[in-house]
């Protein structure tokens, strides 16, 4: 496993949107899904997930309903709304542009300028 990195501000919301875009998940499963899709490379304070989930729900980007978990416990499940899907698309595009720009900047050499 690679060394964990701190999460950049604003990226937790994007990671949550991406996770729930892959299927309906309860809060704990969102955490596992983030660990899975980032290969455990990002360090997330687990409790910080919940204020972010409530914020996204209040913004109408995700929706929730109570259901039963895989071990028959009462759990709250989240799913992406159409507005959330649109936001995810915009944020992913913006993030990719930034990542490309940073990557290009860091590859630059004196000879290549």
């Amino acid at each position: 496993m690679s060394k964990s990195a701190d999460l950049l501000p604003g990226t937790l919301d994007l990671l949550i949107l991406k996770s729930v875009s892959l299927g309906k998940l309860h809060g704990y499963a969102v955490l596992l899904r983030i660990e899975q899709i980032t290969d455990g490379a990002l360090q997330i304070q687990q409790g910080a997930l919940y204020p972010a989930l409530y914020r996204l729900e209040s913004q109408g980007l995700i929706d929730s309903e109570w259901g039963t978990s895989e071990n028959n416990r009462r759990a709250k499940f989240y799913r992406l709304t159409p507005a959330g899907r649109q936001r995810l698309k915009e944020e992913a595009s913006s993030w990719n542009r930034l990542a490309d720009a940073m990557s290009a900047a860091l590859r630059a050499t004196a000879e290549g300028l």
Partner: protein
Amino acid sequence: MRGLLSRVRVFWRGLADPGRLDADMDDEMRFHIEMETQRIMRVTGVDVGEARRQAALAFGGIEKYRGAARDVLGFTRIRGLSLDLRLGVRMLRRSPGLTLVAVFALALAIGSGVAYLEFVNDLLHGRLPFPQADRIVGIQNWDQQTGQPESRSTADFVGWRGSLHSFDSLGAYRALDRNLITPDGRAEPVRGVEVSAAAFHIAQLPPLLGRTLELTPTRTRRGAGRRSAPRCGPATKRWSVGWRQSPESSRSPTRRACRA
């Protein structure tokens, strides 16, 4: 719109039953810690007590994040306000005499404040001597850099007239100085205003002499400018003092003076 509805729905749910919201948050976070406890036990093989301790540590404190979630949803401020209101009402009910004095003092202060402001406003600005004068407002552009009023062209006025739909009517005026030739041959400078046709419609007053300008855009027709040429007359005070309010005394000399 959907985001706003969702926000209102979540907010209303929490406001209507705050105990339920807290209980739901509590259930959700305890479920998370319980699941993490089981995972730690599976992966590391430690006993349930140690696994629960590690899971709680990794979570970071239920109360802390429940508070953060309430803040996100805006309930902390609402609850603080609600507590202040409840305490205030309780204190006022405990001392009815103080409540009466406070209400009376507030009513007196607010009433006298409003009356004073109305008086000062009337004193400073006065009222226009027209029917429904309180419905007439002035529009003045102001240059913020120089601190001076800024004149606008007729084209601006025409543009405003076409786009401002919250006004019944829109008129324009500008001050001007002219030499006035009186019937006895004297000439003296007077200050007057040129107004657009709508000014008479806004003032809702009949002219003392002549007729008002027409609102229809007749000036665009060939030759119509002569038929609907702006009329003007002296101000009431000047007319009373200089010509003794005689229609005969203010005909041609006045018109010539205005066109000068």
